[in-house]
């Protein structure tokens, strides 16, 4: 008989049917994650983004620390040192023709380039957010007008605009370079913010704030700009790469910072004069530029992927 069937438990004792048990078990205790926890998790899962983040920190720290440690070394010429000196711990990249310690000059150049990139991007984010939020919130004719302005600026050859700004307003000034890059580069940020605003304007929480009688400026500043900030942060991070390269291009064309100031661009220009005798010199600032661009691009991509809530992990 037991080969035919199986006895279950002890006969006679039974549980009332209909008592759900185990309603709360370990499965339900998976913690609910907030948006920012999810963002952090998604970011940390992206190996390239984490590497880029670490690289960016290393670059920033190096660009601050070494110029402080080195003091005047980045522009101190010396008659006793020259390109023929063997490399040493004090001068890992040797000395240039004026006896300047190339490593410290490179770090100072990195500092200048990163600062120009940072401040230019600040202007880009500022103008982009202002134009984008006004266009996206106001809509209608104002939106149309501002977007045509964006179209116009986007149609103009960007590099020439920057060149004209710098050439006509005074080359060699970091401030002019920052403004030139900032004033010509805000269009993408503006478009992103506008798109986000158009989406947010119809969203429940903005409608709710409106229903509660919040003023326009309050809604924009308290509710919408914080939400629209994610695309701005992403665009700005990516924009640093562009700004740093533009500065270098300006220097290369002879419109950037002039020695004794140091920037990655003017070091490159300087290295070009020693094309034949010192072929390596051109690589130092070039590789620095590539590292900055790579770090900024992957960091920006990683942030975008992490911040985009539409990319919820699907089971």
């Amino acid at each position, binding site marked *: 008989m037991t080969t*035919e069937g199986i006895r279950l438990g*002890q006969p006679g004792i039974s549980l009332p049917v*209909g008592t759900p*048990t185990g309603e709360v078990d370990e*499965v339900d205790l998976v913690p609910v994650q907030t948006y920012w926890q999810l963002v952090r998790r998604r970011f940390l899962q992206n190996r390239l983004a984490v590497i880029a983040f670490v690289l960016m920190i290393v670059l920033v720290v190096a660009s601050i620390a070494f110029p402080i440690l080195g003091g005047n070394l980045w522009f101190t010429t010396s008659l006793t040192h020259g390109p023929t000196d063997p490399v040493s711990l004090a001068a890992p990249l040797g000395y240039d023709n004026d006896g300047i310690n190339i490593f410290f000059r490179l770090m100072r150049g990195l500092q200048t380039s990163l600062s120009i990139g940072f401040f230019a991007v600040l202007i880009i984010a500022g103008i982009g957010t202002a134009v984008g939020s006004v266009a996206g919130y106001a809509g209608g004719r104002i939106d149309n007008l501002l977007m045509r302005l964006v179209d116009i600026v986007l149609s103009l050859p960007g590099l020439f605009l920057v060149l004209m700004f710098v050439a006509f307003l005074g080359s060699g000034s970091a401030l002019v370079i920052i403004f030139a890059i900032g004033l010509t580069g805000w269009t993408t940020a503006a478009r992103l913010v506008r798109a986000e605003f158009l989406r947010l304007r119809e969203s429940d929480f903005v409608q709710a704030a409106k229903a509660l009688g919040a003023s326009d400026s309050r809604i924009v500043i308290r509710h919408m700009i914080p939400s629209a900030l994610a695309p701005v942060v992403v665009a700005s991070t990516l924009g640093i790469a562009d700004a740093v390269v533009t500065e270098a291009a300006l220097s290369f064309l002879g419109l950037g910072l002039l020695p004794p100031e140091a920037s990655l661009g003017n070091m490159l220009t300087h290295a070009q004069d020693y094309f034949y005798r010192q072929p390596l010199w051109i690589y130092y600032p070039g590789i620095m530029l590539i590292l900055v661009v790579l770090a900024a691009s992957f960091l920006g991509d990683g942030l975008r992927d992490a911040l985009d809530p539409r990319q919820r992990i699907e*089971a």
Partner: protein
Amino acid sequence: MQTTAVNTIAPAPTPARAANPDELLDIEGLKTYFATANGLVKAVDGVSLQIRQARTLGVVGESGSGKSITALSVMRLIERPGRIVAGQVRFAGQDILKLKDDDMREIRGNQISMIFQEPMTSLNPVFTCGDQIAEAVLRHRGGSKKAAMLRAVDMLSQVGIPDPKRRAKQYPHELSGGMRQRVMIAMALSTNPELLIADEPTTALDVTIQAQILELMKALREQNRMAIMLITHDLGVVAEMSDDVTVMYAGKVVEATDALTLFDTPHNPYTKGLLASIPRLGEHRERLEVIKGVVPNPLNLPSGCLFKRRCPYAMPICDVAPPLRQIGENHVSRCWLTPDGGKPEIGEAPLKAEAEASSASLTVEAR
């Protein structure tokens, strides 16, 4: 003897049972797993089901129950990171999981065709409808392009598309959703398949269009004498179309029987829940019953019965995974309840070891 009647469970038929000559498709112990970044998802975990010649099997379950993955496994259209890890899929007697890719392609779209849930996105937007049907004909029947195109137009008229010649020259976006699903059906049937797999064919459509498409499928089924594997979450569609029904939950079969039995005397609490959630015409209920809770996270399945946390009948024994048991002629269910739906006579707190021993001897899964 009376106690045994209540407490014993008939053993499942042996897996090596003689193949029924009437059987067109016989899936046995199919396991399709997905290796995701977050862990292994056992989307289909030991599914067995059969479809007889010219009969329609409804495969029912909520989304995430593994019914679509079962269908895609039969077509061998599982993509990375998914993989069929075990089981057999015998089609007309041969295990198609063992076929070489080239041989499988001869069957795919020819003897077994499939239509998909989303008619809006399932057609290639840059080719005309006629082209896309003719492509299937050319692939499996050969012949001239012109002949294939004539066949396409003929198929379009068979699926009830007015002015088929003109429609054949149109692009998918120029047709409505219902029309596109008709095109999909025309494409699938253009090679006279023996088995049609329809994955939620009406879900994306309006109710009136749904009825039309079902009528069309019924008519074509009679005309072509083909079997259908109808995947749906809608028991109404099943009632309309199916001879047999298999209910799936979290990658496993939880109940399988013929359609009449299922609707008359459902056994599994999950099936009962699904049936209770169908609104009936002329019936006044305060509120529609729904199955509480959600399908468990496939990455973190509960131990024991996968349905226990949503089940109104849940008992301590449910901490042990129930096997699929024979509860009547041609009727299996994955539940500890007795065949007549009563509570099993078991201990207040069954010793886990004892219960596990019980289930261990029940490892043979019934059909």
